[in-house]
């Protein structure tokens, strides 16, 4: 099963403060362990929301609002996609994300939060729910593609 480990934003990430070299090295080592365990599918850092935008669709109309966005705690600063056998295993990985205990690191004041979320898999879109051949073929093709690219 796949999980997304989400690092929440904070004042530093929203201000575009780059991580210290020490933290970057610790992250590099952590990622290497994920790779060695065959668990890492993807990982990326997000630029501050000032470089982003929101698009709201309502009643057939779309409205664009440029960043930055004020609710720092609701924002995302980075993520990993991991492949694991259980939620427990994902929690174990999340516990080991390097945070500088003396902060600021990726987070302010040594306080940080990872949100763990399970991803939908092709197998969740069953024929019972979606009888059309087209949908079933698409999800089976996606499953094959992911097996090839992730192995």
């Amino acid at each position: 099963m796949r999980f997304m480990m989400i690092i929440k934003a904070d004042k530093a990430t929203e201000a575009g403060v780059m991580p210290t070299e020490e933290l970057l090295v610790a992250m590099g080592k952590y990622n290497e362990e994920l790779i060695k365990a065959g668990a890492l599918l993807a990982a990326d850092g997000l630029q501050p929301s000032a470089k982003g935008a929101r698009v709201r669709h309502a009643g057939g109309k779309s409205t664009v609002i440029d960043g930055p966005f004020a609710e720092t705690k609701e924002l995302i600063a980075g993520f990993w996609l991991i492949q694991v056998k259980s939620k427990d295993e994902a929690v174990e990985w999340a516990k080991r994300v390097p945070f500088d205990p003396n902060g600021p690191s990726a987070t302010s004041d040594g306080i940080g939060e990872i949100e763990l979320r399970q991803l939908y898999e092709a197998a969740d879109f069953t024929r019972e729910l979606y009888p059309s051949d087209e949908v079933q073929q698409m999800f089976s093709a996606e499953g094959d593609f992911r097996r090839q690219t992730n192995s």
Partner: protein
Amino acid sequence: MIIRKADDETEASMMPTQELIDSMMAYNGEMIKAGVMLDGAGLQASSKGARISFAKGKPTVTDGPFTEAKELVAGFSIIEVESKAEAIEWMKRWPQLDGHGNVQLELRQLFSPEDFGEEAIAQFDDLAKRKK
């Protein structure tokens, strides 16, 4: 990264209708044809997730669900485009059936290795090689 924010239905684990799947397929197909789409996935409701909070380096685990649906993520697409404007154009074309026509999308730019300096680039290259 296009983030599709959660709502009451995604948090209630309501699966999309066949019609919505069809229109998402058509939309993703167009992004794939344009060479824009790199990845994408839907997230299960937060009840299947957890939060791990760190205080002075010590992790505390809290299982979902989490109540602030509007703050949660329900899905994402990773796209590669020439400009922010191009990304916004794609977002405007998001399937109207999603969220019954009421959906909140957030666009966020990803860091590239170049943003971290030469040493980091070498390390990223090394990691990328070993992953293959």
